[in-house]
Every structure is written in structure tokens, then in C-alpha cells.
């Protein structure tokens, strides 16, 4: 008889801006590798973490900061069956951002909704 595969709800919490530190990139790498484990994955972007999803990121080697632009990878997440991307409403508003500023489709959540979503999770990874 096959062993029942455990499926847990994994939440990745992102609160830091991209490029200033490596947390955005390396947390995304965990999500990508983690996709192979067929768990129930959600991503939350709060505080400066919302900037990770900003469109128009340009990191040219010749004239820019010379770092790899990994923002397009957020668009590829749905190919990995990672589709639950939640963004904190207050963080967006504080930063003058709207959905149109983002590179990928997200669900914008109020505090109570985000808290409710967090309450459903089994494992929370913070970076």
C-alpha cells in the first residue's frame, strides 16, 4: 500500500526589498525547488517585500547595478503551480503602489484577511 503523501501548507513571508540584500532572490529559489514537493504553497509580500514584485526592474551589466534581474521569475511561478501570491494592502498604499505597478497577478489582502490566511498555514518560512 502506498504511503500517504503528506501535504502541508507552506507560507513564504517576504518583507525585504530586492537587490539591497539577497533574501528576495534566495527565498524565491526555495520556492522553486520546493515546488517539486507538491506542497500547498503561498507567498506573502509585506512591508518592503512588495517591492520584489515591482515591474520594470532593470539591472543591466553595462550601465546598471550589474546584478541578475530575477523579477521575471515571479511570472514563471504559475508554471510551478505556485499561484497564491498575497500582497499586503497597507504596504502597497504606504508606498504609493497599485496592482498596475506589479509584474504579476496578486491578491491584495487587508490585515484580517492576511491574518486569516496565516492562521491556515502549517509551516512559515521567513527570510
Amino acid at each position, binding site marked *: 500500500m502506498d504511503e500517504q503523501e*503528506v501535504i*502541508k501548507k*507552506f507560507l513564504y513571508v517576504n518583507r525585504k526589498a530586492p537587490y539591497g540584500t*539577497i*533574501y528576495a532572490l*534566495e527565498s524565491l*529559489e*526555495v520556492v522553486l*525547488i*520546493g515546488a*517539486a*514537493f507538491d*506542497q500547498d504553497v503561498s507567498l506573502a509580500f509585506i512591508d518592503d517585500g512588495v517591492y520584489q514584485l515591482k515591474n520594470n526592474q532593470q539591472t543591466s551589466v553595462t550601465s546598471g547595478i550589474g546584478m541578475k534581474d530575477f523579477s521575471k521569475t515571479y511570472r514563471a511561478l504559475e508554471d510551478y503551480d505556485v499561484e497564491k501570491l498575497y500582497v499586503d494592502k497597507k504596504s502597497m498604499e504606504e508606498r504609493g503602489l497599485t496592482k498596475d505597478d506589479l509584474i504579476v497577478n496578486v491578491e491584495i489582502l487587508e490585515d484580517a484577511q492576511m491574518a486569516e490566511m496565516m492562521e491556515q498555514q*502549517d*509551516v*512559515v*518560512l*521567513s*527570510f
Partner: protein
Amino acid sequence: MKFGILVNEGPYQHQASDSAYQFTKAALEKGHEIYRVFFYHDGVNNASRLTVPPQDDRHIVNRWSELSKAHNLDLVVCIAAAQRRGMLDENEAKRQGKDSNNLAEGFRISGLGQLIEAGIQSERLIVFGD
């Protein structure tokens, strides 16, 4: 209780590794199980065999090695983060054509899947970072 531990920062620079160590030690003393300690981001530097900290302060790397030995802990260093930061075991060094390796005793290098697996298999995952 079966605990998984994630250490996101390197030795000395942040208190994360210390806090993780103290937590792990306390958990073991209480009879809990540590499923795995996973080192990510700069946390991979907790596995450097080459650290020479001042004699009058704690030796973070050795402390982890000793705890690992005493309790048969699984201390895993993420290969992707390790490669970025120049943390290599003998095999990796050979594979990458590097003239040296620097992984301390008690640690092993493996993939990010080990972190996910720790999340799946542990009852609690605790993150220590910045």
C-alpha cells in the same frame, strides 16, 4: 516534539546562529528531537572549518560540530548558498575544480529540498535570521 531549525545568518555577524544553538541545546536537554538544522543564506558560513575566533569567546563553528557529534544531529548546508559564498566540501571542491575545501566536521552539503523536507517532517520549524 520534532523540531526543524533554519539558520539564515553567519557566525558572529548576527545573533541568529547563537540563538539557534541555544534553542537547539535547550530542546535536546528537554528530550525533544531535532530533525535537522538547515543553514541558508550567510548561514552556510557557520560550517567553515577555517574560523579562528578569539580564544576568550565562543567558537561558534566548533560548538555546532560538537553538538552535532554528541547528539547525532543532521546539520545541512544549502549547496546553492554555499557555492555562492565559497563553502565547499571535498567532493564539491573536486567537482568545481577548486584547490581547497572548507567544510567543518559534523556538517554536510545538500540541496534546498532538505529544507522543504524538514518543513514536512518536523512538527515545528523555527527560523533564526535577521
